[in-house]
Every structure is written in C-alpha cells, then in structure tokens.
C-alpha cells in the first residue's frame, strides 16, 4: 500500500499531518460529514498510517479517535451518538490490552482487538462493494433505454387503475412513516448528555455515594449506558465527581467531590 503525500514542504514530501496541526472546528465539521460513521473514520485513521488493518495499533488509533471526538463535542454533539459508542468500545479495548492478561486459553474470544478488526474488515468489504456497485453501468447514466414512438393511432394505452382503497393505504403508509420519522427524532433527543450530567449530579447531591450501576437505566438501552458513562467521565474530568473502586474488578462507585479549599 502506498499513499500519496499530503503535501510538499520545502521540497520534502509530507505524508503525515503534523500531530499538533490545528484544525479549525468549522473545517472539522465539514470533514466529519465526509465520513459515514465511526467505522469509516477509524478506517481512515488506519489507512492514513499506511498500515494493514491487522497491524492496527489500538492505543494510537484510540488517541487519534478521541481527539476527533473531543473536537466534535465542541461543535455538534448530535452527530456523536454512534461515535460515542465506538469511543467506549475503543477505550474498553485499550484498557483490556493494558491489563495483565490471565494465562488461560480462549485467546481468540478474549482478544478484544479481534472484534474491532473484524468489524473494520467487514465494513471495508461493503464499502468497497458499494464503490463497485456505483461503478456498474446503470440506466440513465451510462445506459439509456432505446425506445421508438409506438404507432400512434392504435395506442389505447389504458391508464393505471387505482382504487380508493389503494389511495387510502398509500396515505396510511405515508402517515405511518412520518410518525416513525418523528419518533426517531424524539428518541434521539431524549438522552441528552447535558441532561444526563445534571441528572447524575442531582442524585449524587442527594445521596453522596452510589454504585455506578444505580445510574444506569436499562430502559434507555445501549445508547443510554454510553451517554451515562460519558456524563460521568465529563463530571470526573471537571472534578465534580470521583470514581471509587476498592479492589480490582470490584463494584465501581461514584462519590460527589466535596468542595475543599482551592489550592
């Protein structure tokens, strides 16, 4: 695999963006819209390193990915739901790789990297399939149906018959689809990370110390869990909440950080 250099600087080919390159948020927005989702972005990051997917360096990719996510959050958060799920998955993989591994077998199942690699390969496969599909000659682009004027006089082309019931069924379907469409929107808005943060904070203000699992609401599904998790991380980062785990693999608790005297 060989990629073209990104630019030439003083005659020297530059094939990697400088790590500290500043990307203006607006440019990033446009840039992210060019991606079809977290897998597409990941695939891009892997390809940019000019390495085989199989040799993916999870730690490095995770960092780059997180950098994008952070920039995204600064900009348009609604875009991020699926990106966040991936962020959580990457973080998990990274942590598991860093942890000492138990010696016992099961290595294929246990290697968290394999799942990611499989997904990337699978996605890449269909990404290519879509490109191939797009290259097939198709009607009204490379191909045009040949037609000649049918002999006019004889032409008693019956018009399609439509029953009133067909029309009503069509209306019902349009309405049903519109409803689904609206529900979809509402759902997306129900789990707002900002709300989640204040929700977590409110509960901790009341109860001071709680197991993490108490914050999770299974009714909110996977997305809810991810958003809760992110909300907790954000609160921790802002030193409002503390994560407590007394032993490895033990239950994780959250504690409200008491405002002490500022340093």
């Amino acid at each position: 695999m060989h990629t073209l250099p990104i630019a030439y600087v003083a005659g020297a080919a530059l094939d990697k963006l400088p790590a500290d390159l500043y990307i203006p948020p607006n440019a990033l927005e446009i840039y992210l819209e060019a991606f079809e989702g977290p897998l597409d972005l990941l695939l891009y990051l892997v390809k940019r390193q000019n390495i085989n997917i199989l040799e993916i360096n999870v730690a490095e990719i995770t960092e780059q990915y997180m950098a994008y996510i952070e920039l995204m959050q600064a900009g348009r958060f609604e875009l991020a739901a699926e990106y966040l799920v991936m962020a959580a998955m990457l973080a998990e993989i990274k942590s598991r790789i860093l942890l000492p591994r138990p010696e016992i077998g099961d290595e294929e199942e246990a290697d968290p990297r394999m799942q990611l690699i499989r997904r990337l390969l699978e996605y890449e496969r269909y990404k290519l399939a879509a490109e191939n599909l797009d290259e097939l000659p198709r009607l009204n682009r490379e191909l045009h149906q040949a037609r000649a004027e049918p002999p006019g006089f004889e032409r008693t082309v019956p018009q399609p018959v439509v029953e009133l019931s067909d029309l009503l069924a069509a209306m019902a379907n349009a309405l049903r689809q519109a409803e689904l469409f609206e529900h979809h929107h509402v759902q997306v808005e129900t789990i707002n990370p900002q709300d989640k943060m204040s929700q977590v904070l409110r509960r901790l203000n009341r109860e001071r110390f709680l197991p993490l699992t108490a914050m999770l609401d299974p009714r909110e599904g996977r997305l809810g869990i991810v958003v809760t998790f992110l909300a907790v991380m954000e609160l921790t980062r802002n030193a409002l909440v503390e994560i407590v785990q007394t032993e490895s693999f033990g239950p994780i608790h959250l504690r409200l950080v008491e405002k002490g005297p500022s340093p």
Partner: protein
Amino acid sequence: MSQDLKAIVEALLLAADRALSVDEIRAVFDAGERPERVAVKEALASLAEDCGPRGVELKEVASGYRLQVKRELAEWVGRLWEEKPPRYTRALLETLALIAYRQPATRGDVEEVRGVAVSTGIIRTLLDREWIRVAGHRDTPGRPELFVTTRRFLDHFNLKSLAELPPLDEISEESGARALGFERQGETIPADHA
C-alpha cells in the same frame, strides 16, 4: 467516421423520446467535432435506408426526425398494453394521497411528510393524468406551485366531493393493519387490479 456518426444519430433518436432537429443533433457534439448539417442529413438518409426490413422507420415531423414503430406492426405492439395497464409506484400514490388530503400543497409539503424528494416525473404524471392541477403559487421564496386535485380525480375515485374522502384519523387507525396487509403481498401496492 460517417459510420460512427450514423450510430450516434441512431442512439440519439432512440434515447430522446421525442423528435430531434438536425441542429439539436449537432448540438451534442463539441464545437471542434461538430458535423456539418449536410453530414447529419446524410447519416439520417442512410439510417432511413437501413430501416427497410426493420421494425422501425425514420419519420420527419414538424420538430425534426424520429424513429417510430412501423404502422403495420401496430397490431402486435398494441397488445403490449392490452389488459395490463402499467402500475403506479407507491411514491406516486403517496404523493397523490398527500395532495388530496392537504391541498393546496406544494411539492415541498409532500416531501416534508414523506422525508424524500418527489421526482419531477411523478408530478408530471399526475398533471398529465389531470388528477392534479396548479392552483397558484405560495407566497414564499421560490414561489412554489400549489397543487390541488381536480374534478377528474373525484370522478375516478367515484367521489362527489373531497368531503367524501374518509377522515384522516380513521385512516391512521387502520394504518397498522393496512400497512402490514400490503407489505405482506410483496412488491408494493396492488394498483393493477384487472
């Protein structure tokens, strides 16, 4: 080269779905390669000759030349349409239904409910069939056309007035069952009852 020109001319006439003038034919060539009018006419004449044993003939009409199916084959060709009228797509039926219920409605109104663009072809088919007409323009940017249904639409569906359309809430109540009903039948909407 003149062989190529003839093939291109034939392709143009068979793709265009209307008669083409000599100048329209010439217009598809880049300025540097544009054939002379006389060359196009020669190609047309040669094409007309080739048609001898074929199922089509070249005909010159007011707006130019077109390839048309020979009259004597009308008997067979006509049967293509006998007894099986074409079918409308679900997109067309939904567009029609939305215009009927929300009239006057713009293309944008329909698109908003359906969540996808409404093709020009659909609107044209509905206008051609005289089931909808343009009643005016909405006073918003772009001044989009306002569509309403016609008397012919009412006639086709055996309605005396729009008031006879079943109320919307009745339809949506039924919608679950109905929608499943026609999905189970496969293709789309059984618009083609004999």
